[in-house]
């Protein structure tokens, strides 16, 4: 089906999200909480756009709005830019020292004229980490509490019994607040320390035993857990070379 985004005709599959269609057509909509790999939750609201259907205009979050019939979308009207600027004003007031946020605001021309009562936060509660943990990890972290005190944590802020130390949360965190500290063959994350396995080929520490066990259980098969991911790639390549005698 056809939708018009910023005056441009775009093809969309029924149920496809506006953001995905825009991206495919080279139309850049700013986002903070969206990832191609994880389900959208529409929490940052930066990606809002105007949707015009049946002569009515409304503001929707493009990352989670599914296209079900022909419509027109405007991604950069004054109204939309105004909303984004106010949201950025709030976010930068929450986390004034955050480099990712300031770069983002400058890149999209959303730097606010003033900051409000500043908080000293780093986390912007985009929810990417909790979604990554749900999809890739063991559901060890979630948002905790509600209202202005909401935060991301493990249950009761204690080291989680189920955390496998995969580090997906840290890898996906756009503001780099979640840190996986690696020293002397251990990884420390969310207050829990994991022994890292050593790669039998290159000798590098690469993953916690808990993670490997979890993945094997999930996949239902033995993995080549003795080697780190880069060595496994090299070994695969060598295998192919032998088979095809290149």
């Amino acid at each position, binding site marked *: 089906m056809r939708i018009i985004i910023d005056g441009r005709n775009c093809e969309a599959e029924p149920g496809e999200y506006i953001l995905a269609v825009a991206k495919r057509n080279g139309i850049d909509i700013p986002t903070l909480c969206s990832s191609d790999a994880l389900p959208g939750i529409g929490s940052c609201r930066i990606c809002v756009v105007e949707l015009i259907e049946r002569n009515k205009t409304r*503001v929707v*979050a493009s990352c989670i709005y599914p296209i079900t019939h022909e419509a027109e979308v405007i991604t950069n009207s004054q109204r939309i830019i105004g909303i984004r600027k*106010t*949201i950025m004003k*709030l976010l930068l007031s929450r986390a004034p020292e955050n480099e990712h946020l300031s770069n983002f605001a400058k890149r999209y021309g959303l730097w606010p004229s003033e900051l*409000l009562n500043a908080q000293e936060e780093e986390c*912007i509660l985009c929810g990417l980490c909790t979604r990554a943990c749900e999809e890739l990890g063991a559901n060890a972290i979630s948002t905790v509490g509600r*209202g202005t005190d*909401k935060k991301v944590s493990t249950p009761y802020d204690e080291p989680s019994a189920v955390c496998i130390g995969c580090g997906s949360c840290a890898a996906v965190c756009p503001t780099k607040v979640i840190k996986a500290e690696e020293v002397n063959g251990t990884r420390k994350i969310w207050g829990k320390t994991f022994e890292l396995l050593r790669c039998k080929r290159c000798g590098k520490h690469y993953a916690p035993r808990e993670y490997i066990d979890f993945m094997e259980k999930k996949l239902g098969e033995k993995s080549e857990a003795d080697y780190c991911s880069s060595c496994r790639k090299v070994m695969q390549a060598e295998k192919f070379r032998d088979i095809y005698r290149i």
Partner: protein
Amino acid sequence: MSDLISAEKKKILVCCGTGCVANGSIKVYEEFIRHLSGLSDAAAVEAVVKSTGCNGLCERGPIVKIQPDDISYFKVRIEDVPEIIEKSVLDTKVVDRLLYHDNTTGKSFRSHKDTDFYKGQYKIALRNIGEIDPGNIDDYIVRGGYSALKKALFQLSPEEIIGIIKKSGLRGRGGAGFPTGMKWEECKNSEGSPKYVICNGDEGDPGAFMDRSIMEGDPNSIIEGMTVCAHAVGAEEGYIYIRDEYGLALKNMSAAIREAEKHGFLGEDILGSGMIFRINIVRGGGAFVCGESTALMASIEGKVGEPRAKYIHSTKKGLWGKPTVLNNVETWANIPEIINKGWEWFNSIGAEHGKGTKVFSLVGKVKNTGLVEVPLGTTLRELIMNIGGGIIGDRKFKAVQTGGPSGGCIPEKHLDLEVDFHSLESVGSMMGSGGMIVMDDRTCMVEVAKYYIKFLSEESCGKCIPCREGLRQMLNVLQGITRGEGKESDINLLLELGEMMKEASLCALGKTAPNPVITTIRYFMDEYLEHILNKNCPAGVCKPLTMFEIDEDLCRGCGICKKSCPADAIRGQLKAPHSIDVSRCIRCGSCIDICSFKAIHTARGAEK
């Protein structure tokens, strides 16, 4: 007392709703039982005592009604029980001092139905409450209970049921006002199974107790409404989500479900029709946001109670991703009556933009605090000044806040507004679930806005930035204004944040959260400016901006203010004008509230 009550027997109905229980009605109930069992003559056998749900006029509880003589007693104490039995149970006389006495004329009324508070009411959702023992299913059946279910199962097709609800014009009583019949139809036509039916009993608005009263006082009407819907949409499983603080509601709902199952109104093979429908109770953990339908469903699923976008309706993908009908307690209670009496009847009641009745919890600075059910289209003036009996102490009406914490504050100039879904929105407020908080001239509107924003900033789910961070900053600005640190630019900042939150927030909580701020700025801009520019709180509420003065010409020297002052700050001889010692005054306002001669007023900022 499970046998049906014959018409000749006298019924003593003791209100055991939460308000009356707090006023000691359980003891009164027990006293009636004790006294009756102690009577040896045959007359005692002819009377039966019942504990009922809330009668609405909690202000004057405990309430006791004698039927069939239609006598209503208010503020009944244990000591009154023997006299009531002697005069009204064993005889047909009344105890005049316990009757309802009109606030102004002093006239007494034998039946509560003739009083101003009840006269203007029309009860559909509350039809049985106060008339039946909620723990006795036979009481419900005697009053026509479960006849709608029989009609729905054996005389109507699912399409016909949905047609009746659609044509009745019933809209959801929980807040958004979505047409109920359309919701059911969407669910019925949605692919996917199983389908679910949910009752939202997570009432969380400060001062609201409509749903609580229905769950406590007439649980079977909810069960019957849900079962009719389950039949219409093809659901076999239902949930009632009740906030855990509502202990009595949980108890009465659970007992009613068990009884309904025993009587064949729920469970397997309902009334021999082959229909299956089970209802489970889920206890809510007390998060206000879980009253939002999608957050409620997430909570039932065991997830964090956060709303999701409703771009895809719950009627298509609701609980566990399956088609779901979710309605509020009051909506469900309306269903059996509509099925029994027909859509034409329901549609003939109410206003253009809202058919039927609405239950409001009328609280705040109004004389008759309580629960009222009126036809939609009733004016605010009728509700507050007649049914509510006007403002306590005959002070000046200032505003009424409708629709819960994220509703707006409506000023005096809109008192003649006929209340319906559309009209309240047109003045910046909303129907919500029916909270109605009345404020007098001793209410500071900036403080009111601050109160609601504080509540919401604690109760927002915190998921989306506009709501969470917007409320945080709004609260900060409002706290500044009430401390005397306000700037002129604050008004524009509040409006900028408010507009953005309305447009960009994820759920209805965030979209409506700025209402208290936007409406108080719209209708009470002077008061904001007085705080900001003159550092003065005209209502005498914000302590750093308040000073009280006694007008020597009006003061009669009665000394009551002196007695009520907790800080010993008032000086003066009896029958001579008094004065306030500014250095001792803690600005609590006790003196201004208690003065009968209106001799105490707030001083202007410049004079401080």
